[in-house]
């Protein structure tokens, strides 16, 4: 039984996608850049705090996939943390609802400097399809300063990975 299991393991490739297939060879690139850029600025890793400020949950589904063995975000030194006090990056989704605006601002204030804000999804740009509603304040930058936008409805995990790479480049 054990031998069969070992033999099968040897035959199979790792389940995590090869970096190239995530975004056209950008993945290895990302690993290199992370080693260079984020090390200078924030050490070897970026701690990410995700904040849903009004999304439909579509963006959260795809962000969650970054933690799966397929995308395995942690191999790049990127990881999600439970508190803004531990975070370097705020990953903010959704049109900013009036009911979440205060909570978002307080989460931003609780995040230590230096910090980056990534607005994720079309709604986070300017409110998206929900723009103009009485319950919507606007895009993420209506409430806190935004360093980078990852578009998409929702953006795919590959697009999200690429966005985090751009963030590092911009701040290197």
């Amino acid at each position, binding site marked *: 039984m054990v031998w069969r299991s070992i033999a099968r393991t040897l035959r199979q490739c790792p389940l995590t996608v090869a970096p190239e297939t995530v975004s056209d060879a950008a993945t290895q690139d990302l690993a290199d850049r992370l080693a260079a850029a984020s090390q200078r600025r924030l050490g070897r890793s970026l701690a990410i705090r995700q*904040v849903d400020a009004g999304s*439909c949950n*579509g963006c959260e589904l795809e962000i969650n996939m970054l933690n799966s063995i397929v995308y395995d975000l942690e191999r790049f030194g990127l990881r999600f943390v*439970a508190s803004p006090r531990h975070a370097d990056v705020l990953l903010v989704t959704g049109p900013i*609802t009036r*009911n979440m605006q205060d909570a978002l601002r307080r989460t931003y204030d609780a995040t230590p400097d230096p910090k980056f804000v990534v607005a994720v999804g079309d709604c986070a740009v300017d409110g998206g399809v*929900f723009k103009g509603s009485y319950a919507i304040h606007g895009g993420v930058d209506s409430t806190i300063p935004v360093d980078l936008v990852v578009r998409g409805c929702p953006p795919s995990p590959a697009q999200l990975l690429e966005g985090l790479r751009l963030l590092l480049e911009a701040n290197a």
Partner: protein
Amino acid sequence: MIAAGILRAAPTAPCAPWSRHVLTPDAWAALVDALRNDRDVALLSMWADSQLVYCLFHDIGTGDFIPASVQVDAGAYRALSPVRPAAAWFERMIHDLFGHIAEGGTDNRPWLDHGHWDQHAPMSPRATPNLMAAEPPQFLPTEGDDLHQIAVGPVHAGIIEPGHFRFTAQGETIVRLEIRLGYVHKGTLGLMRGKSPRAAARFAARLSGDSTVAHSIAFARAAEAAAAVEAPARALVLRAVMAELERVANHLGDCGAIANDAAFAFLPARFGWHREAVLAAAFGAFGHRLMMDCVVPGGVAGDVAEAGILPVLAAIATELPGLLRVYDDYSSLVDRMVTTGTVRTELVNRFAAGGFVGRASGRDFDLRRAPGYAPYSDMAFEIPLLQAGDVDARFRIRAAEITVSIDLLRRLLAGLPDGPLTVPLPLATGEGIGWAEGFRGDIWTWLRLDGGQIASVFCRDPSWLQWPLLQAAVEGNIVADFPLCNKSFNCSYSGVDL
């Protein structure tokens, strides 16, 4: 039978496929009184427009679904919450959006309105400036020795939607949980008004991202019912293919996430792998990983490239029994699941809770079977049912439904009819109800068209009737088991916040 009799005696207004019974305020009051001792009539949905308050009832004995409405009289109507506790959240929502007062209601605290909007009752033609103090919210009182409160949210520790959970605990044991939602209220219903069904469908698709297909189907069916058209056969089967893919993807994610909350990393790794494969197959087949905007009123947005779906299903079907054996074999895992977060059958029946929450507690209800809709009406398939009502039962219902959905998908893809993908929707005036069984449970959408534009609409997510039961399920459990209970329910925030 008394309540159903009062409903049926009322005159009707046209609504497809079931006429709406128009009750006078007196008849409505008699109905409320009759419902007190009448367990045969369940409340499935409750909503309003500027003139009327509407309900969708289910006559359990005959299996009939009965829409009803009552005129709002001097800004008020007789509350339903004293006899149907599930009505309380609806009444608070109706008050915050339209300003109608539920007279004698069990809870008149604000719900969606946290005091941050410019106007009070923003959906009402007589919206007034909002003078309500924003914070702090009032929570229900608790009495007893050595109680302490734990406030969680709206920003949660995980990658999930925002909401506030207020626990009152005695030591480690939860005495009361009160859930406060409304943080992601986007004014979706208001944005849908005045738009064509085709334009408004984008909002139905974004009511709850994980149920985008199911909500889109329910919305499209309501619009088609109101306009008296039917989507072509090929579109109906493609919708079902998307709906079952969505169900499989979400159940895979949930099964992994439940095990993850018991700190068992192997199952989320494997279930997550298969979930990704399903999403990638959906992208290959329909051009979008979540299949958002792929269902449109009148049909579907595009054809299918189905080649990638079957191999993914085969891989899941091969590995699933082994994963469930792993689940069964680890007593430390099962120990966390069994008898945790139990919901009694009596309670799911009283709240008419659908989906895996209801079916894990013995409520045998699935819209694909009753009232049914194409193409499921012609297909025989099992609907898994358990009685235990705990986290373990909700896990097992999901796992069993994955297998059923894989079987359905294979049959649907094998019998894909030829033909057009859409029919045009005429600029109609009318009222319609549409439904779809999403992965969470029964979704009901009602709308009224006026000259081809949406005059009024309500989309009832299953979570309306499930969230309140989560509050009941955690009672007497330890605080550390709350994530497990919560994940086993996996209710939608955005779907209820509207």
